[in-house]
């Protein structure tokens, strides 16, 4: 315990003595963490946007002409049982005609000359976001089309596959970039602590000769690493929040329509940043101090 307190004392003295290197390290790690968390925020936002778009897309199931109420009901029941379908809206042929009138606007007079309503009734489906792979939806559409009473199934095939591509690209990039940034941060931590260790190599040699144990020698570096990582984490969490607020402010000024659309990382993530920083730094320190040989 006394040894631990003494280690803390040494660690903080060293932090002050080597303040420039430590400051640089803290800044580097902060920037690294900030980059990573900014990226996460951006991904989160793009994902949210895609989700919003994604749920806007659905499927329209056109029913055959003159179906009995029972058949329509049974189709509805079948569709309702499908857990991939989030929302189900029945659009009667009359409603469809009204919609078409609205679309045609001033030119809707062409419809007046028609004897009967040529538009079919339909079900408009909204699908669960997770199921939006093009192949899956294609299959589902084909299956629904085979149901008796269903005449046609339409869905935004092209759109779907584009959105899907964006989403996949985002995820792949997230993993690649995330890994790269993590590696970079790990390197910075490791190399800095290694370097701090090297710089005190003579001192450590002397301590070893005086009978210091391994933990006595390593402890200050571990504490230092923990501190550097933690402080970096706090700095980057604060910067991230500031940056987020600033960005939102600027964007809203520029494009008022965006208000309320930009989302922030959840509070848990903000709390996790310093902890992750400290743990990464600690791991870095641990490997940097290495195995001490007498």
């Amino acid at each position: 315990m006394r040894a631990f307190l003494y280690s803390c004392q040494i660690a903080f003295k060293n932090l002050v003595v080597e303040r420039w290197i430590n400051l640089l390290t803290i800044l580097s790690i902060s920037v690294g963490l900030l980059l990573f968390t900014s990226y996460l925020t951006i991904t989160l936002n793009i994902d949210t946007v895609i989700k919003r778009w994604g749920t806007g897309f659905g499927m329209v199931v056109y029913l055959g002409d003159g179906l009995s109420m029972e058949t329509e009901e049974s189709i509805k029941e079948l569709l309702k049982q499908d857990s991939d379908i989030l929302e189900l809206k029945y659009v009667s042929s009359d409603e469809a005609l009204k919609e078409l009138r609205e679309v045609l606007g001033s030119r809707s007079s062409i419809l007046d000359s028609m004897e009967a309503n040529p538009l079919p009734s339909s079900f408009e489906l909204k699908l669960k976001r997770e199921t939006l792979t093009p192949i899956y939806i294609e299959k589902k559409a084909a299956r629904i089309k085979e149901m008796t009473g269903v005449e046609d199934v339409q869905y935004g095939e092209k759109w779907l596959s584009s959105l899907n591509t964006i989403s996949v690209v985002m995820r792949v990039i997230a993993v690649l970039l995330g890994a790269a940034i993590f590696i970079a941060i790990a390197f910075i931590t490791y190399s800095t602590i290694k370097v701090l260790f090297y710089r005190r190599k003579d001192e450590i040699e002397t301590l070893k000769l005086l009978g210091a144990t391994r933990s006595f020698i390593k402890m200050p570096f571990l504490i230092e690493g923990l501190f550097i990582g933690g402080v970096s984490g706090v700095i980057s969490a604060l910067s991230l929040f500031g940056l987020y607020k600033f960005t939102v402010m600027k964007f809203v000024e520029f494009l008022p329509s965006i208000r309320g659309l930009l989302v922030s990382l959840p509070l848990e993530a903000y709390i996790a940043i310093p902890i992750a920083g400290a743990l990464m730094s600690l791991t870095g320190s641990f490997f940097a101090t290495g195995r001490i040989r007498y």
Partner: protein
Amino acid sequence: MIQFSNVSKFYDEQIVLKDISFNIEKGDLVYLTGPSGSGKTTLLKLVYRAEHPDDGQILVAGWDVAKLRQKTIPFLRRNVGIVFQDFRLLPNKTVFDNIAIALRIQGLDPRLINEKVNDALNDVGLKHKSHALSQHLSGGEQQRVVIGRAMVSKPTVLLADEPTGNLDVETADIVIKLFKEINARGTTVLIATHNRELFMTSGRRVIFLRDSAIEKDIIP
């Protein structure tokens, strides 16, 4: 207390110590001398396991030094006070801290450390330099800090490598008197030195090294 049996030590291909055997009893004060490069420092390094013998057995205060496990080495060294030829002070630390560190690594109580370090500072006559950084000391002052650090933990064995090289005659006398006092309190002392004045008239045992071997071992 320090027993060498047929110890040999090579650096690369070069032999530095060849088949060295001697036995220093508990409570002895022994001088080790020999020309520059004859292996004095190497012999001392073998005692505190800074070097590993290529052959033979070394017993120090009951430890079989060559067979010591890595984890045990610090505990051997805590029983051995060392005045390094190249000082090995912590340059950015004060004189006080440089001496205190020998006790801090053992986890002693800060008040006890304070007391012991102040005693040691008095012994080597550096009380007034207590708060000076060791890198701001003169050569002789640094040497005395090293001596203070070696003594402060009241080790079982005290090794001193050229402890008077940077000292004027008066200070050297004080230091040697200190070693004798420590020795009188039961510590085994081994001093490597070129300074003939120290051992010629001392009436103590002197081991002479030359060409990697013991040339003479004069036991009075």
